[in-house]
C-alpha cells in the first residue's frame, strides 16, 4: 500500500509593493494613512540611528556594531504589531525593535559602547541581546510557556536569522512550542546572508518558513521590506498566539544592505550587482512613494522630520557618552550575593587599585 500521509504548503504575503501600491484585499483594517506616516517616521528614525551608530563605531566611539539598514520594515512592522504586554526576544540586530518598543536610546547606545548597563532596564519587556546564534530561541519558547502558565494573556516574539535556522536550538525551540502549544511567534529575518554564507548554502529547503512544518506548526512567508505586510502577518500571528496558544513561524524576506558587523567586508564575498538588485525594493522608499502620491508627504516634511530625529539621536549620544563606568560593579552581579572567595578577589582588586590607570600607562 502507498498513500500520501502529509501535504504541506507555505503562503507568501505582500500588502504594499515596491511602487507603493496597496493590495486592498489584504490590507489590515486597522491601518490608515496616519499610521502609515507613523511607520514611515519610525523606519526613517531607525535608519538615521543606524547610520549614527555606524559612524560612532568608525570614529572609535563604539565597539563592534551590527548595522540593520535595509531591514527597517520587518523590524518596525513586527514591533508595531506587538501589544503592550508582549515580550520580544532579540538576537543582536533588532535595534529598531528595541526603539519602537520604547527602549531608552541613550541606554541602548551604552550597549554599543561596551557596557552591560545598556542591556536591559528592569521591567523592560524583552530578554537580553543574544550573540550566540539561535540560542535565544529556546529562551523565547520557555518565556512563552511562562506567559501561558501565568495566564498573562501575552505572547512572545522571537527573532532569528536565516543562518540561525540551521542551528539545533532553532528547531528544538519551535518543536517545544508546537508540542506544548505556547504563544510564540518566531520571526526568521532572512536577510540572505549569514556573514559570508548565502541563503542557498544554509538549506536546500526552498523556503525557511517550511521548517515550521517539521515542528507541526504553521509557517508563512512575507515580503520583509513591506512594513504593512509584516505588520499584518505578525499581528495576525500574535492574535492567534494569544487567543489559541498557537505558535507560528514567519519568514521575512529582506536583505542585509550593509555589513554583517563592522568587523566585516562584504565586497570579499558578495557581488555588488546583487546589492543593486535589492535597492529598488527599499522598505522606506516604497512608503514614501505611497505618501507622496497621496499628497501626504513632501520635501519640507522630510527635512523637518530628519532634523528632529537627528537632534533626538544626538541628545541620546551626548547622554550616553557622559556615562562613567564603575568597575567595582562587575563583581556585584555574578550572584544574588557576593561569596567570600569572590569578595576576597574584590578586596584585592580594591587594595591594588587595579582600575585606576597607572600614571606611566597614561603617558
Amino acid at each position, binding site marked *: 500500500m502507498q498513500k500520501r500521509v502529509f501535504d504541506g504548503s507555505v503562503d507568501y504575503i505582500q500588502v504594499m509593493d515596491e511602487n507603493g501600491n496597496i493590495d486592498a484585499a489584504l490590507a489590515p483594517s486597522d491601518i490608515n494613512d496616519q499610521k502609515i506616516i507613523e511607520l514611515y517616521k519610525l523606519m526613517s528614525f531607525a535608519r538615521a540611528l543606524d547610520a549614527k551608530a555606524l559612524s560612532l563605531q568608525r570614529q572609535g566611539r563604539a565597539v563592534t556594531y551590527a548595522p540593520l539598514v535595509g531591514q527597517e520594515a520587518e523590524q518596525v512592522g513586527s514591533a508595531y504589531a506587538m501589544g503592550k504586554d508582549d*515580550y520580544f*526576544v532579540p538576537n543582536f540586530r533588532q535595534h529598531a525593535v528595541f526603539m519602537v518598543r520604547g527602549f531608552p536610546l541613550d541606554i541602548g547606545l551604552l550597549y554599543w559602547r561596551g557596557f*552591560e*548597563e545598556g*542591556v*536591559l*532596564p*528592569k*521591567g*523592560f519587556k524583552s*530578554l*537580553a541581546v*543574544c550573540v*550566540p546564534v539561535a*540560542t535565544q*530561541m*529556546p*529562551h*523565547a*519558547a*520557555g*518565556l*512563552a*510557556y*511562562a*506567559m501561558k*502558565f*501565568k495566564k498573562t494573556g501575552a505572547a512572545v516574539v522571537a527573532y532569528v536569522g536565516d543562518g540561525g535556522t540551521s542551528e*539545533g*536550538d532553532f528547531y*528544538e*525551540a519551535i*518543536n*517545544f512550542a508546537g*508540542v*506544548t502549544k505556547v504563544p510564540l511567534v518566531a520571526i526568521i529575518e532572512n536577510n540572505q546572508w549569514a556573514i559570508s554564507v548565502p541563503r542557498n548554502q544554509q538549506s536546500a529547503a526552498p523556503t525557511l518558513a517550511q521548517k515550521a512544518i517539521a515542528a507541526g506548526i504553521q509557517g508563512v512567508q512575507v515580503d520583509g521590506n513591506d512594513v504593512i505586510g509584516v505588520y499584518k502577518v505578525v499581528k495576525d500571528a500574535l492574535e492567534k498566539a494569544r487567543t489559541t496558544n498557537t505558535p507560528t513561524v514567519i519568514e521575512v524576506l529582506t536583505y542585509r544592505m550593509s555589513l554583517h558587523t563592522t568587523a566585516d567586508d562584504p565586497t570579499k564575498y558578495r557581488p555588488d550587482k546583487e546589492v543593486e538588485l535589492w535597492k529598488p525594493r527599499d522598505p522606506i522608499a516604497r512608503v514614501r512613494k505611497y505618501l507622496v502620491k497621496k499628497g501626504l508627504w513632501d520635501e519640507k516634511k522630510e527635512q523637518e522630520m530628519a532634523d528632529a530625529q537627528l537632534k533626538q539621536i544626538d541628545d541620546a549620544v551626548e547622554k550616553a557618552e557622559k556615562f562613567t563606568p564603575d568597575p567595582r*560593579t*562587575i563583581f*556585584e*552581579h*555574578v*550572584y*544574588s550575593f557576593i*561569596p*567570600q*572567595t*569572590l569578595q576576597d578577589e574584590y578586596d584585592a582588586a580594591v587594595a591594588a587599585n587595579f582600575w585606576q590607570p597607572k600614571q606611566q600607562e597614561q603617558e
Partner: protein
Amino acid sequence: MLTNMVGAINNALDLIMKENKNAVLLGEDVGKDGGVFRVTDGLLDKYGPERVLDTPLAESMIIGTALGMSAGGMLPIPEIQFAGFMLLSFSQIANHVARYRARTRSAVELPMIIRTPVSGGVRTLEHHSDSPEALYSHIGGLIVVEPSTPYDAKGLLIKASHMKDPVVFLEPTKLYRLFKQEVPDNAYEVEIGKANVIQKGDDMTIVTWGTMVPVVKNAVQKKGANAEVIDLRTINPLDEQTILDSAKKTGRVIIVHEAPLSFGPGAEIAARIAEKAIFELDAPVMRVASASFPYPFPGYEQYYIPNEQKVMEAIEKIMSE
C-alpha cells in the same frame, strides 16, 4: 522518615512544588516514568502535566526553555537524564544561565535548579558516569552543589529553591540507594556554601564530597586514622575558610574526588591551601582522584575510581612525610 537519597529528593521536590506554585519540573521521562531513577515518581499525578513536563528529547532546549521560564517568573527545575548528556546543554548553561544576571546587571534573575545524576560505580553504559563538578564551577555564576547523604540532599535542594541564583544540583547515582537515613518530614534548609565537618580529627584533613564520602569514611575507620573529614557539599562557591582552618590545625591535607585528577577540583583546593596555609603544613598536599582521562566502560571502572585501598595508602603516605 527513614529514606534513601532518591526518597529524600523526591520528598524535597514535593515540598518545593507545594510551597511554590510557579515551580515546574521538566525533562526527559520525568513524568509518567518518574525519571529513569524514579526521583520524580508520583509528582505528575500530584501536580499535573503543566507542572511536570515530559519534554521532547533535547537537552539544550530543556535548559534554554528553563531559562525563559525563569525569566518569566517561574522556578524551573530541569532534570538532565545523565551528566554526559548535559554537555548537549553546555552552551545554554555556560553562555546564558551562568551569565544572565551579570549581562543584565541583575535586571533578570534566574532562579533555577538543574538536577542531574553524576559519577559512576554502578556499572552503566558510557556517558552515564561522569563527574563534571569542575566544569560547572569553573564558569562562574553557577552554584554547584553535590550532597552525599539523604539529609543533605533534601536540605540543600530546598535551600536551592529559595535562592535567586541558578544551582547545578549534582546527585551521585551510586549514593541514590546505598543507605537510608532518618530525615525530618518537614521542610528544612542545609546551608549552601558551607562545608560539613563530618568527623573531627587532629592528624590530617581529608577534603572530599559526593561518592567519595563513604569511601573516605570507611578508609579512615579501617586505618583507625585521627583524621578530620570535610564533606564539601557545595563545590562552588567554595567554603575556603573551613578547609584552611582545618589544614592549619592538622598540617596535612588529602583531597579525594572521583573526577579525573588533572585540572580537577582538587587542584583548585590545593592551590588555595598553597597560597594561604603552606607554611603551616607538615607535608605536601595530596590528591586522590580518578585517572586523567575520560571515564572508561563499566568493565574497567573499578580500576579507575579511587577505592578505600587507595585512600588508605594516601593516609599512610601522608603520615610518613
